[in-house]
C-alpha cells in the first residue's frame, strides 16, 4: 500500500504500540493485560509497519527473524518454569523477590512469573509476525 500519510503515521504509531505493548504486559498481573495481550499489541505495531512500508522494511526494523524471537520466548518461558527446581519446588512454581520491601510496602516485586509472561509475550509476538510476514511475501 503506497500512502505517504500511512507511512509517516505508522512510524510514530508503531513505536507507540510497541511501548504500549510492554506496558500492557507489565501491568498484567494486577490489571487487565498480560503477556498474551502484550504480544498481540506489539505484533499489531509491526503488522501495521509491514502494511505501510512493506515486509522488507519491517523485517529490517525487527533485525531478528520473527521465528527466532518465538523460539527464544519458548526457551525463556521454560527456563522460568525450571527455575523453581533450584528451590526444590514443583515445576513452574512462581519464585518471588521483593526488592526494598518494608512492613507497609512490598517494594519492587520481581518474579519468575514475570519472566514467564515475557516468554509468552515473545512467543505470541514472534509467531504472529512469522505468519503475517510469510503471508504478505507469499501473496
Amino acid at each position, binding site marked *: 500500500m503506497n500512502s505517504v500519510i500511512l507511512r509517516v503515521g505508522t512510524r510514530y504509531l508503531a513505536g507507540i504500540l510497541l511501548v504500549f505493548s510492554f506496558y500492557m504486559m507489565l501491568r*498484567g*498481573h*494486577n*490489571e*487487565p*493485560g*498480560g*503477556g*498474551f*495481550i502484550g504480544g*498481540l*499489541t506489539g*505484533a*499489531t505495531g509491526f*503488522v501495521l509497519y509491514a*502494511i505501510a512500508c512493506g515486509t522488507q522494511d519491517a523485517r529490517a526494523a525487527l533485525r531478528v527473524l520473527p*521465528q527466532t524471537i*518465538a*523460539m527464544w*520466548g*519458548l526457551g525463556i*518461558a*521454560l527456563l522460568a*518454569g525450571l527455575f523453581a527446581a533450584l528451590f526444590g519446588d514443583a*515445576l*513452574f512454581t*512462581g519464585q*518471588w523477590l521483593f526488592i526494598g520491601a518494608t512492613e507497609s510496602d*512490598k517494594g519492587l*516485586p520481581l*518474579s519468575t*512469573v514475570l519472566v*514467564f*509472561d515475557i*516468554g*509468552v509475550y515473545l*512467543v*505470541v509476538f*514472534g*509467531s*504472529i509476525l*512469522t*505468519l*503475517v510476514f*510469510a*503471508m*504478505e*511475501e*507469499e*501473496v
Partner: protein
Amino acid sequence: MAGGFPTDTRGNGLTGIVPVLFAGAIFAYFVSLMPAIAANEVIRVSIPWIPSLGIELAFLVDGLSLTFSLLISGIGTLVLLYSNTYLAGHPQYARFALFLTAFMLSMLGLVLADDLILLFVFWELTTLTSYMLIGFSHEAEKSRRNALQALFVTGAGGLAFLAGLILLAAASGTTSISGIIAQGNALKEHAMYLPILILLLAGTFTKSAQVPFHFWLPNAMAAPTPVSAFLHSATMVKAGVYVMARMHPAMSGTDVWLWTLTIFGAVTAVFASLLALRQTDLKQALAYTTLMALGTLTLFLGQESGYAMTAFATFLIVHSLYKASLFLVVGCIDLSTGTRETDHLGGLGRLMPVTAVAAALAALSMAGFPPFLGFIGKELKYAGAIAVASEPLFVAGAALLSNALMLAVAGVVAFRPFWQGSVPSGQAPREAPWQMWAGPIILASLGAVFGIYPDLLQVALINPTVISLTGEVGEAKELKLWAGINVPLFLSIATFVLGLLFYKFHVQLRAKLEQGFQAIPNLDHGWDRFLDGLKGFAKWQTLLVQNGKLTSYLFATFLTIAAGILLTLLYTGMPMIAVDLSDVEWKHTSIALLTIAGALLALVTNSRIAGIAALGVVGIGIALIFIVFSAPDVAITQLLVETLVVVLVAVVMLRLPSLPKAEFRLGHAALSIAVGASVSLILIAVVSSPLDLRLTDYFEATSWPEAYGRNIVNVILVDFRALDTFGEIAVVVIAALSAYALLRTTRKGDQK
C-alpha cells in the same frame, strides 16, 4: 558376482575382526553354561521393566534356549569370519557387520526371552534386521523388492502373533512364559485356546515359511550368501519353530495342534523337497531344502512322544550344521567360478580340495549316511514317525519321501559340482582362502564327530532340550548309530535306494517337475499385483478424504461437531433447559442484533471486503459481550485477534477475484443450522445447570495472598496453570512454524 576371491584376504581391518571376537565371546559364554544345563538346571535372570503391567526383562536359559543360543552364536561367529573375507573391501562392510551382529543379538534375545512382550519385541527386531540384511545389496531392485516382501509377509504374521500373545497373556493372567508353562493344562482347557493357537501359528508359519507362506524364503536369497547361511540355517526361519517348541508343553496334545502342525509340516516338507530338486541354482536349491527342514521340524512338534521330541532336537542341530556349511560352500563356489548354476559347474574337486571335503561331509550328513549325525537324525525321524499313534503311515511316508529327495538334492548340490564333469572353459577356479573354508569344514566335521560320539550331544543338549519340550525328565530317547535291525533301519535302506534313483534321474525328473509346477498357483506371482492394488486403493482413498477442497474439509469438520453433539444428546437424553429472560437489558439485545446482522451480511454479500468486514462485526459483537459481562482481558484479546485476522484475511482475499454470486446450497444451510442449533442447545444447557463455584472461589481467595496478583485471569495463566500455558505457547510456535514452512514450500513450487 564373477571375479574370483578377493585378493586382499586381510578383510576389513578392525570392523571385520571386532564382530567376530564379539560373537565368539558370546559363544564362549554359552559354552560355559553347558555343564549347568546338562545337570538339568535352569537359569533365570529378570529385571523389572514395566512393573505396573507385570512385564519383566526376563531371560531364561534351559535346554531349548541354550541349544538355540549355541547354534546362533557359534554359526554367527563363523559366518562373520567368513563374511570378512567374502565381502573384503566392500565399502559398506561396517554397515553389514552391524546389521548381522544386531540380527544375531535379536535372535539371541528371542530365544532367551521369558516374557511374552519381550519375546515379541525381539521377534520384531529379527524381522527388521533381517529386512536390512536381505536388502543389503540395495542397488538391485530385485533385492529391495524381495526384502520388502519378506518384511511384509513376516510383519503381517507378526501382527497376528502380537494379537495371539496378548490373548495368551490375558487368558493365563501373566506375561511370563515359564509362568504360563507352569500352569500345565490350564491353557488347553481355556475358552480362548483356539483363537490363541490360530493367531500364534499365523505368526510362526509365516516366519518359518510354511506352505502357503513359503514364497518369501527363496526370494530372500537375494541376500549375500553369508546372510543366507545365517538366516536360513539356525536363525530367522527357526524363530517360528522355536516359538512353537517353547509353547509345546503348554499347548500341544490337542487334536487341533496335532493335525494343524502335522499336515502343514508334512505338506511343506514334501512340497519343498520337490521344489528343491527342480532348481538349477545351488543357492535356490538349498533354500528349498531349508523349507523341507522347517516342515519336518513342524511335523515333529505336532507330536508328543519322546521319540518325536528327541528327533526334533537332533534334527534341529543336524540341519543347522549341514545347512550353514553348505550355504558357505556355495558362496565359495560362487566366488571361485562366478556361477551357481549346476549345469555350468563340474570338476571342482581337485581344484578346491578343502571346500570339496567340507561339502562332502555336510552332504553326507544331509543325505543321512552313517556314521554322520544326519543318519541318527533320520533314524530318529522314522522312529518318531512310527511312534505317532494316530497316523504313522502318513507321517512316515512324508518323512521317507522328503528324505529320499533330500539325498538327491545333497548329491546335486555337493557331489556333482565337485566330482562329475570337468571345469567348463573360461573358468579358473581356485581354492578358497582359509577364512572361507574354516567355517564349512568346522560345521561339517561336527556333524561327523557327533555322529560317531552321539553321547556328547545327548547329555549336553538333547536331554535338556527334550525336558524343555515335554516338561518331564527321562523322556529323551538314546542317540545311537546302530540301533539293531528294526523298522527304521529298513526305512533308511529304502531311503538310500529311492534317493539314489532320484539322483540318477534328477535331470529327467526336473523337466517333469517343471511342467507339474506350472499348474500350481504361486503366491509370488500375485505378489506384485497385490502390492500395486494396495497402492491404488491407498491413492483412491487418500483422494477421497483429501481432495484439496477447503469446502469439503470444513463440511466434514462441522458435520463431525454437529453429529457428535446431537448423537450424544440423543443417547444421554435432552438436558434440562430453563431460559430466564427477565434480566435481559437493551444493551444485550442490541449487541445480539448487531452480531446477527454481521453474520447475515457475511452470508449474502458477494464482495470479499464486505464479507471480511461483516465477519469483523461478528467478532466485535462477541468482544462487546465479554466487556458487558466484565471480562476485560478476554475482550481485549478478542479485539486484537479480530484485528489481526481481518488484516491477514484481507491480505490474501484482496488478491483473489470477487466472489461468485452467492447461491443457496441446501446441504450447507442444513449443516449450518444443525451446528448452530446444537451449540446453542449445549450452551443453554450449561447455563441452565447450577454453576460450580469451587474453583472460582479458590482462585479469588488465593490469587492475592499466594500469587501476589489481583488480575485473576492472568494469575491463572502465568502461575496457577503455567504448565498449561507453556503447552499452549509451544503449540502457537509450532503452528506458526508449520504455516511458515507450508507457505515457503508452495512458493518454491511456484517458482519452478
